[in-house]
């Protein structure tokens, strides 16, 4: 493995643009207020929508009292079950790219499945008027007792987890049950993680406008094509009559992958009123109506021999789902691939709770699963009196242990070693509480990080313009990861046209179909499509250039390449602008697609990393702080190390939130207790530790010609476990329930 990649590395010639740190091409727009997020625009005759939500968690809506609200200043209409348009559900298919987050349509019936469910939608001439009227809508309910919002309360604490087994999630190899039985060292522990909210800074927002029978909707979306397709099914319109635009997104982390009902309400209201309707959800509704990382319960059983060799792994997961939309977080899904072990069984279960549907949240499944598995390994290391890093090395998987395929490229050992060295892991004292600095006890912890490297299909269009600029267009999005910039870098690399002359257009469903911005697959998916489109456009330029009487007439077409915006063959050069001028053309453009190929059955594609953390615990004031994080990540080639490193650092910060703070709370009646940014605790500037992120640079050319595997998720994985393990090292307290809040530390 190492040798192979080493060879690849020797052959690799770093590009002029790809692999280089580049400031974002959209940076100036973002830094001057010019970037147009979904509702950063006013349309003529525009109105404002504001949803009204259920204040019970379970029951039926008997009636609405609307008279007072309708009489309020500026109110145009109020939409609800009795007057809403008759629509069709989206087929809700990932393969057909029309998945929605909540298949149930708004106001479809009067059943109330969760606190915060939409029960009406007020439209008024101003935002203030819409909000004021929404406050005056009164609902009468028939309340059912027994709303479930806490799956931990359903867990007996031993044996099987609660919930319904998901057949598709279960996998098994070897004979894990009897192997565990016979193992000399055993561990059987339960872990849990509280519900987390994406808490995106830009609330979900839509601005809908109908022109005749065509709908344009500006949306904060991680998937304009998915939303376009879903809306076309819901409104029974041809897809080309729907345009979804999302030039800039105030982050998504998964909550904006698949459309939520506010967009449908907004579009219906706009059609009914014949006016544009702008809706930005209030912050409170972000906690009840736009998904979340579901609470998970996990049970991990490990069997090992005395040397630390893993003999068996059982990993059972259970996560919340919703009456109005199923979501399986597959928290144990990656475990079969993590370590060399012949006997492995994983399952996942779902429990339906009275909340809106969960949805993917950054590193879905793996962020939760890695917490349990990597904490369990730390516990096993304690049992074995072994260094936790050595334990992991001992069980390094030379090939993918789940399917036996060779890794496309795997540098996990270097990640472990490099991060350990920079962190100073050798100074760790294994006895809890042995390291102290003044009032504070110091703890070190580590975990392995991982995320599957996926590549999907994408199309892209490239156009050479007469003014020398290059258009690159793709119906994907830049959610803050830097997609605009890496597309420009790539196009510049391939054509020699300076980055400043490259016009990247994304975030528009009318552009060639591009992927969702999620799953860390956008980079690996989009760039090959850009390359294919460049190649296609080059073919057209070549044809023009070699036509009879043209400057390259007679030149063998396969000798012609592109450099510095010029066609090149041997010593002959021809500026593309000149060629276009010669042919009186304003634009030569081409669209092409690219997708995964045979390599998918030949290799296993996965990124790995290692994270080491230092925590500080001041026991006399119960203050726990994350002091230092060192991470080394192997993501293949980082097209732009500046933005890629930022992704990993951001993942670490989110891991800090998961480990110490974040917890959406619901009381016994199903009331969302902390549905705001003051009570749902996110990390702030003063919480941020020293962070040292290293990106290894081993291009993975087996996944795509750019060697890039994507970077959005991996930084988050393992962080909560590393924190929990460090807390144990500092205090001897083993907290298996995230987040590690003050009261847990006090009672542990």
């Amino acid at each position: 493995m190492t040798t192979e990649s080493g060879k690849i590395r020797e052959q690799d010639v770093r590009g002029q643009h790809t692999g280089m740190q580049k400031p974002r091409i959209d940076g100036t727009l973002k830094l001057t207020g010019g970037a147009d997020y979904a509702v950063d625009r006013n349309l003529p005759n525009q109105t404002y929508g504001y949803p009204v939500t259920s204040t019970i968690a379970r029951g039926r809506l008997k009636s609405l009292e609307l008279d007072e609200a309708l009489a309020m200043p500026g109110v145009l209409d109020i939409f609800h079950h009795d007057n809403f348009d008759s629509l069709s559900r989206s087929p809700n298919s990932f393969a057909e790219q029309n998945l929605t987050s909540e298949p149930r349509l708004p106001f479809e019936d009067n059943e109330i499945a969760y606190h915060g469910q939409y029960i009406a939608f007020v439209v008024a001439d101003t935002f203030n008027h819409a909000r004021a009227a929404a406050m005056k809508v009164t609902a009468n309910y028939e309340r059912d007792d027994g709303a479930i919002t806490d799956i931990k309360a359903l867990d007996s604490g031993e044996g099987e987890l609660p919930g319904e087994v998901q057949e598709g999630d279960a996998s098994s190899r070897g004979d894990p049950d009897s192997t565990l039985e016979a193992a000399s060292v055993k561990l059987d522990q339960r872990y849990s993680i509280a519900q987390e909210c994406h808490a995106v800074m830009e609330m979900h927002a839509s601005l809908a406008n109908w022109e005749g029978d065509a709908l344009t909707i500006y949306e904060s979306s991680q998937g304009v094509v998915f939303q376009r397709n879903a809306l076309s099914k819901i409104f029974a319109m041809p897809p080309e009559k729907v345009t979804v635009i999302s030039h800039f997104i105030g982050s998504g982390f998964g909550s904006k992958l698949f459309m939520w009902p506010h967009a449908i309400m907004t579009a219906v209201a706009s059609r009914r009123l014949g006016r544009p309707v702008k809706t930005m959800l209030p912050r409170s509704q972000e906690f009840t109506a736009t998904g979340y990382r579901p609470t998970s319960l996990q049970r991990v059983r490990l069997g090992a021999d005395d040397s630390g060799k893993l003999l068996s792994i059982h990993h059972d997961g259970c996560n919340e789902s919703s009456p109005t939309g199923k979501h399986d977080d597959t928290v144990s899904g990656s475990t079969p691939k993590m370590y060399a072990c012949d006997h492995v069984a994983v399952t996942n279960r779902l429990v339906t709770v009275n909340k809106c549907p969960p949805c993917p949240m950054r590193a879905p499944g793996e962020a939760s699963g890695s917490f349990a598995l990597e904490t369990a390994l730390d516990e096993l290391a304690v049992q074995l009196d072994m260094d936790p890093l050595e334990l992991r090395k001992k069980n390094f998987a030379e090939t993918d242990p789940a399917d036996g395929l060779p890794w496309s490229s795997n540098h996990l050992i270097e990640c472990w070693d490099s991060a350990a060295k920079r962190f100073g892991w050798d100074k760790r004292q294994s006895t809890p509480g042995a390291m102290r600095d003044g009032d504070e006890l110091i703890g070190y912890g580590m975990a392995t990080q991982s995320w599957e490297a996926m590549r999907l299909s994408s199309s892209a269009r490239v156009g050479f313009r007469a003014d020398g600029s290059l258009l690159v267009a793709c119906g994907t999005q830049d959610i803050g990861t830097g997609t605009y910039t890496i597309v420009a870098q790539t196009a510049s690399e391939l054509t020699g046209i300076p980055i400043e002359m490259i016009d990247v257009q994304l975030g528009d469903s009318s552009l060639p179909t591009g992927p969702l911005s999620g799953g860390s697959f956008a980079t690996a998916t989009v760039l090959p499509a850009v390359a294919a489109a460049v190649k296609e456009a080059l073919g057209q330029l070549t044809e023009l250039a070699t036509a009879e009487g043209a400057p390259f007439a007679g030149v063998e077409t396969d000798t012609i390449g592109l450099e510095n915006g010029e066609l090149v063959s041997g010593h002959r050069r021809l500026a593309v602008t000149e060629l276009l001028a010669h042919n009186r053309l304003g634009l030569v453009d081409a669209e092409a697609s690219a997708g995964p190929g045979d390599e998918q059955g030949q290799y296993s594609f996965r990124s790995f990393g290692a994270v080491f953390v230092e925590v500080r615990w001041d026991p006399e004031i119960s203050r726990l702080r994350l002091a230092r994080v060192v991470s080394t990540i192997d993501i293949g080639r980082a097209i732009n190390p500046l933005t890629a490193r930022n992704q990993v650092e951001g993942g670490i910060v989110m891991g800090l939130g998961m480990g110490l703070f974040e917890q959406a709370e619901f009381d016994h009646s199903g009331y969302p207790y902390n549905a705001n940014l003051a009570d749902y605790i996110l990390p702030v500037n003063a919480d941020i530790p020293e962070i040292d992120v290293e990106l290894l640079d081993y291009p993975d050319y087996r996944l795509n010609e750019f060697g890039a595997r994507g970077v959005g998720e991996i930084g988050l994985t393992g962080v909560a476990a590393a924190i929990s393990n460090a807390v144990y090292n500092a205090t001897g307290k083993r907290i298996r329930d995230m987040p590690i809040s003050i009261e847990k530390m006090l009672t542990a």
Partner: protein
Amino acid sequence: MAPTPYSRPGVGYCTPAAQAEIAERPSAAGGASAGNTRNVTLSVNGEQHRLALEPNAILLDVLREELGLFGTKKGCDHGQCGACTVHVNGRSVNACLMLACMQEGAEITTIEGLARSAGYEQGQHPIQEAFLEHDAYQCGYCTAGQMMTAAAVLNDRAVAADAASVNDAMSGNICRCGAYKNIREAIETARQRMQGES
């Protein structure tokens, strides 16, 4: 080349005809339909704007929906995130918790006017340049608020220059993308450059 040609300072993407129509239509943030409006002149980024506003119009909504200054963002509407931070008479404040009508006579600066307000007629404020270089953002949504607070903190002699003081002073601006490390570095770079100028 910037990726989107759609956005212009002011009204965002719409045609000149549409812009003219917007100028004619009733107020959007304060609303005129109730007839309960008053004439207010707001000074924003050095320009005087005469507006008819309802008493309950919030400064953030007026900046965005009336004046088309969309650089200032709404992240919570309750003083819990800092995305709406603007300068009023040079101090950083949360525009979501201010009545627009009370700001008559005040000098309001938004991200669109930050550079000019600080005397950088050409180009950008050092904090903007430093944010670009350090990649001190990801999605960019909290970024205007981060920079408005940072610019004010850098000018505030009451806030010590040590890391702990600056980090605490910046803690009212939440960045869910977690670009804090780069934000810190950008602020430090901007401080050095601004000191070099003075």
